[in-house]
């Protein structure tokens, strides 16, 4: 293992090199582009033995990745924002054809107006496409997670695609020390992809032909749902094996920080959790019992882990970096739904912050914690840092 100073995008590139992806199809988009550049260089130098397909759009990037995966090859692509939105249709093909494609999505706001900075609207809009979604907090976690989700996605009980989210600029272009495992270690962790089904010449195989109501459409959709639940069950095991081989920490579906004796907790995702961590430490120094629950896995949704939070804490704040217009923050909505029916449910305070890269300060997070501790004026939807009263 060697320690390097890597941007989040470089960490993605290193992970894909270690995963020995066989087909990379990608299209440039800010702030994802340096992932594609990194991989092109790796293929050019012979560090990655892959076909590199310089497609003409993200729609085709995903289409080509699905095609490669159906051929039995390990496929990778990366995108962001508008590119992910353009892929939407093909995301359903990837999951529906049960191809364990892995994709890095650099979380960036959607236009209009044009904005290249971080929020989670792009990936949240894809939550119903049958993809595993994991959100990273650090560049180390970016690298580790890409490798872990290859294992998870390619597990024969799962066979669904996975996307790993890293925040625009705060991870993608920020340099952090990253421990890069040796390739022989990763080769033990992630053996060559061996799918239960792939295109075999001179057979009558069908991949995705039509199925009317009385045939198997609904059953295949049910299989996909079952596979997603399997992915949730298998994630801790996949992480644990990775930790044993590399010594890198495991986080689970929900990464809890200083929650043991906490009175209240804040839920957040991505790099915002790092800011929240600092706020927790600062408040703890003042003797305030606050904790952080970072949502790492969003699909499949870890409802059990969320219920466990609900059973242990009486007041929970949820910080969303996306909006489901007309319904508030998507994370808040899902947390609310997961908490229904538990005895003595907690009070939930829901906040929307940091859209389009708007800075979220430690002070703002402190204030959320302090209101949570006081129990007064807890909002069902409040926008943080809004310049005009909404």
């Amino acid at each position, binding site marked *: 293992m060697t320690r390097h100073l890597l941007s989040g995008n470089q960490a993605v590139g290193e992970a894909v090199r270690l995963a020995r992806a*066989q*087909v990379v*199809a990608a299209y440039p988009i800010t702030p994802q582009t340096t992932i594609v550049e990194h991989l092109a260089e790796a293929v050019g130098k012979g560090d990655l033995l*892959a*076909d590199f*397909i*310089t*497609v*003409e*759009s993200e*729609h*085709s*990037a995903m*289409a*080509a*990745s*699905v*095609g*490669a*995966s*159906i*051929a*039995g*090859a390990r*496929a990778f692509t990366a995108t962001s924002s508008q590119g992910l939105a353009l892929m939407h*249709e*093909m995301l359903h*093909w990837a999951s529906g*054809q049960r191809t364990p494609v892995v994709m890095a999505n650099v979380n960036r706001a959607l236009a209009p107006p044009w904005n290249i900075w971080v929020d989670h609207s792009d990936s949240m809009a894809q939550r119903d496409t049958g993809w595993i979604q994991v959100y990273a907090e650090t560049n180390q976690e970016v690298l580790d997670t890409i490798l872990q989700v290859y294992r998870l996605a390619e597990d024969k009980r799962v066979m669904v695609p996975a996307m790993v989210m890293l925040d625009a600029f705060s991870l993608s272009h920020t340099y952090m020390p990253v421990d890069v495992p040796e390739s022989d270690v990763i080769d033990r962790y992630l053996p060559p992809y061996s799918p239960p089904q*792939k*295109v*075999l*010449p*001179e*057979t*009558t*195989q*069908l*991949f*995705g*032909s*039509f*199925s*009317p109501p009385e*045939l*198997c459409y609904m059953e295949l959709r049910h299989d996909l749902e079952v596979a997603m639940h399997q992915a949730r069950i298998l994630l801790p095991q996949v992480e644990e094996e990775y930790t044993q081989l590399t010594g890198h920490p495991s986080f689970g579906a929900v990464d809890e920080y200083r929650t043991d004796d906490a009175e209240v907790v804040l839920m957040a995702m991505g790099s915002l959790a790092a800011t929240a961590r600092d706020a927790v430490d600062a408040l703890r120094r003042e003797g305030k019992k606050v904790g952080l629950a970072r949502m790492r896995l969003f699909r499949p949704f870890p409802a059990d882990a969320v219920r466990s939070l609900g059973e242990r804490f009486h007041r929970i704040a949820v910080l969303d970096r996306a909006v489901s217009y007309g319904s508030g923050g998507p994370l808040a909505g899902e947390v609310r739904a997961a908490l229904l029916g538990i005895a003595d449910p907690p009070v939930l305070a829901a906040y929307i912050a940091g859209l389009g890269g708007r800075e979220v300060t430690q002070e703002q997070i402190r204030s959320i914690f302090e209101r949570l501790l006081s129990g007064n004026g807890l909002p069902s939807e409040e926008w943080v840092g809004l310049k005009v009263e909404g």
Partner: protein
Amino acid sequence: MVKLTLPEAELMDGGHVACQGCGAALAMRLFLKGTGPDTALVIPACCWAVIAGPMPTTCLRVPTVFSAFEATAAVASGLKAGLRRTGAPKTIVAGFAGDGGTADIGIQALSGAAERNEDMIYVCYDNEAYMNTGVQRSGATPPGTWTTTTPRGLEKSTPKKDMPGIMVAHKVPYVATLNPSFPEDFVAKVKKAASLPGLRYLHVLADCPTGWKHDPALMVEVGRLATMSHFFPLYEVENGRYRMTWEPGQPAPVAKYLKGQGRYSQLTDADIVKVQSDVDARWAALKKLTTPA
């Protein structure tokens, strides 16, 4: 009697669900005779997404990957790359898409694949409208044709999109026009395409009696007239060099081709004269390209 020289082996079985007299069904049967069994198909939304039969049945004896309407050439690019990486580099990857999926919604992915000169055969079976959705005009619909979106009063006035010309402009190694009513010419072109590397584009005129509105029994006949009248000439372009592959001695009047189809019933005599002059001009231009200087 002349004995046809087509390969006898069949890679498409009976029991498909195409309409009677479907040119696209015959095109697939002939295409697979030309490529042979080591072929993998990519089929987008189009009639052929249905013709093969519902899951888990199929009339095709080759593996078939279905995908989204506009994605054929991109899926095929990935499939070929994947097969190259997993020990099946010789398998012929073939996209098989309709005219809407090629000339309209799929042209971006096709143009990208052509510019990259991806190793695939791309077949456009052109029935000159969106037939699977019930006969709506596409970019490949000839002017004056009746479709449900070009009814009387809303006729299409613009020319048919020249897909073979567009593909030639991409400098791909092989472009050809094919007509299942000329099976030997058809299979010879598929075989030639199969022997070449890079992106090979085959543009097939595929009669659709349902949308073209004629007796399904006359499919082969109508197809023959399309080429006999110079309406759909048979040529190939190998590395930029044009060659006519079959020419009628004395061309049939275009009116004979048009009047056999209900979809042209709204054309007036003056319209038909115009179509004839357009066909003559296209033929003259093609003759120039196919005649060595």
